[in-house]
């Protein structure tokens, strides 16, 4: 972290061991803070992750099993049993998997353990997108025009049509962009409802939907909040996450280049107000859609976010440490006025995917990983050299986070870090991320959530022909038969055969 680290009074934790119920980069990131606090970190892992960095680094580890690797990480009973086995007093769920599962949070408490997260009631309220919207609206905060299927299922399509196109269909139980579909043509509505319902049913076990007016060219701005069990709630400023593909974030930054100082104050205060109204404790994120000077509540994520490091970079506050302190029953170590944002931070998500092929996932093996460790740069990575990259999990492999004194310095550092980072053995989006950050629109802070779709050339741009040939020439010599054939050829003839380029 580049902003000065905030020191707080040492905490006496009512637990010695924290079980980390996650995998990949976030398991390692949580483990680092757990150990920095003098606690013992334990991890659960499926056998496909046996070589993962967190599993290698943790003092204690428990193998979990399941019909699929994902199923193992979703098996709450098995994870609670693992916590008991290692004598853990708390479980940190990370993000995804069981992090927003109220039933799991209850089961953890029932087992006499602490869940490092909000109350089950807060998870339930915010997990039901329809209830959450109604709650926010009731408290006088802004939401987008919408129609809820449950209000009268028989007239859902008709009422949706009345909101006006374009529409966005969302699963009531959803999140993370899964099952969301934009509908621009009235004729396509019926079929898209069927598809969205089927996806909602499969991903969330809940086929209920709602529809809202889709704001064209919107920006995604979210606010980090922290609450404790004593009624204190603060915000840690905003993050802008408008660069997305298929509703999933690729680049996040703070501060947002879109907001005026006044708007920034207003959106951050709104987020803290929503969290306070919900009696929220632990780390959470209130997401907003922003367009044409107005912002609407989108949803609240009741967990640590993937992009939390940019907030850590500018505030100097370790969010995982705060989560553990709150879970230990401590009050927040600072008031709103103590929190300042310094400089600018950008995070780039490195995915195993092919931007040129519509961002489809890629597979392979991490044969070589090189981290240049440049100034102002943090790498949160979840794979080790030699580890297989499969489609069993989300394709995110690592996050590169940079900090600079201003946005331009941060942007230059992001470009340098992306140029220096090496991952061989599986196609990634690294070169694409560099083209994005170098793009004039991103440089000018002029992006929206449809930016990547509007500029398909950034994704499809091939490696320049000259570089391609150069790389091909170097790679060809790595093929034994090519080198052997060259070595076998008498030198004078070989020399004559080669003309200068």
């Amino acid at each position, binding site marked *: 972290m580049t902003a000065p680290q905030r020191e707080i009074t040492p905490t006496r934790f009512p637990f010695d061991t924290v079980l980390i119920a996650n995998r990949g980069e976030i398991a390692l990131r949580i483990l680092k803070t757990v150990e920095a606090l003098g606690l013992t970190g334990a991890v659960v892992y499926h056998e496909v992750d046996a070589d993962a960095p967190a599993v290698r680094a943790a003092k204690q580890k428990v193998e979990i099993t399941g019909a699929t690797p994902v199923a193992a990480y979703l098996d709450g009973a098995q994870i609670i049993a693992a916590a008991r086995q290692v004598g853990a007093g708390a479980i940190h769920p990370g993000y995804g998997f069981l992090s927003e599962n109220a039933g799991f949070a209850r089961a953890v408490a029932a087992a006499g353990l602490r869940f490092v997260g909000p109350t089950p009631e807060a998870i339930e309220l915010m997990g039901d997108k329809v209830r959450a919207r109604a709650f926010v609206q009731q408290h006088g905060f802004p939401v987008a025009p919408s129609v809820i299927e449950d209000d009268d299922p028989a007239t859902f399509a008709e009422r949706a049509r009345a909101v006006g196109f374009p529409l966005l269909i969302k699963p009531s139980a959803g999140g993370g962009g*899964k*099952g969301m579909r934009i509908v621009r043509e009235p004729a396509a509505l019926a079929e898209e409802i069927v*598809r969205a319902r089927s*996806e909602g049913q499969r*991903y969330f076990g809940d086929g209920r939907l709602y529809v809202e007016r889709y704001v064209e060219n919107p920006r995604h701005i979210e606010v980090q909040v922290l609450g404790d069990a004593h009624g204190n709630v603060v915000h840690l400023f905003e993050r802008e996450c408008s660069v997305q593909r*298929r509703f999933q974030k690729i680049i996040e930054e703070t501060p947002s280049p879109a907001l005026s100082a006044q708007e920034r104050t207003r959106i951050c205060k709104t987020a803290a107000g929503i969290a306070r109204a919900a009696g929220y404790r632990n780390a959470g994120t209130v997401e907003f859609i922003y367009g044409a000077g107005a912002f609407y509540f989108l949803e609240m994520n009741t967990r640590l976010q993937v992009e939390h490091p940019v907030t850590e970079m500018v505030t100097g506050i370790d969010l995982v440490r705060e989560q553990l302190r709150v879970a230990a029953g401590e009050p927040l170590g600072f008031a709103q006025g103590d929190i300042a944002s310094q400089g600018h931070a950008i995070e780039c998500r490195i995915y195993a995917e092919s931007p040129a*092929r*519509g961002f*489809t*996932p*890629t*597979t*392979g*093996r991490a*044969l*070589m990983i*090189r981290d240049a460790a440049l100034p102002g740069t943090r790498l949160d990575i979840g794979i080790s050299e030699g580890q297989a990259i499969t*489609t069993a999990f989300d*394709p995110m492999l690592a996050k590169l986070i940079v900090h600079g004194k201003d946005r331009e310095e941060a942007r230059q550092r992001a470009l340098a870090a*992306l*140029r*220096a980072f*090496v*991952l*061989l*053995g599986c*196609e*990634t989006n*690294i*070169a694409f991320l*560099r083209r994005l950050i170098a793009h004039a629109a991103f440089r000018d802070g002029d992006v929206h959530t449809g930016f990547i779709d509007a500029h398909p050339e950034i994704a499809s741009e091939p*490696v320049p022909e000259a*570089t*391609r*040939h*150069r*790389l*091909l*020439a*170097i*790679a*060809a*010599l*790595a*093929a034994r*038969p*090519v*080198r052997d*054939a*060259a*070595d076998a*050829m008498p*030198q004078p003839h*070989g*020399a004559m*055969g*080669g*003309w*200068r*380029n």
Partner: protein
Amino acid sequence: MRAIFSIDEAEYPVFATREGHAYRVHVDDRSYRVGNDHGALVAVDGDTIHVWLDGETLTLRYHDPVAYHASHADGAAEDTITAPMPGTVIAVNTKAGQAIARGDTLLVIESMKLETAIKAPRDGVVEAVHVAVGESFDRSAPLATLVKAEA
């Protein structure tokens, strides 16, 4: 004999010659001197070669020249429908022997949390379906084969 390297669908015949302590590699109508100071990083996994230089990465496949020329002697069949991306089969809507029309949905696959319908590229008859519901596959895996069209 020139070795064949492919990058995605593009093929490049390549040969190398010695040039003192370095090599000269001939690609298409150009040649490049490759010494020990090229600054690139290379990782080899069987016939697949991954190379990185200054933030750009390429993956190449080396084709043994003899095997390559043998396999290209008989015309490649265009009757197999392959996976556009890695994923899992959600539904199989057809079976061997069934007559299908261009645009019919043969299978539904899931990848990246999205359902995608795999449609028939032409009218014809299904010869075989190579995957079952619940099965996972890599990119380019054969999903279904159509009976060869009459010439």
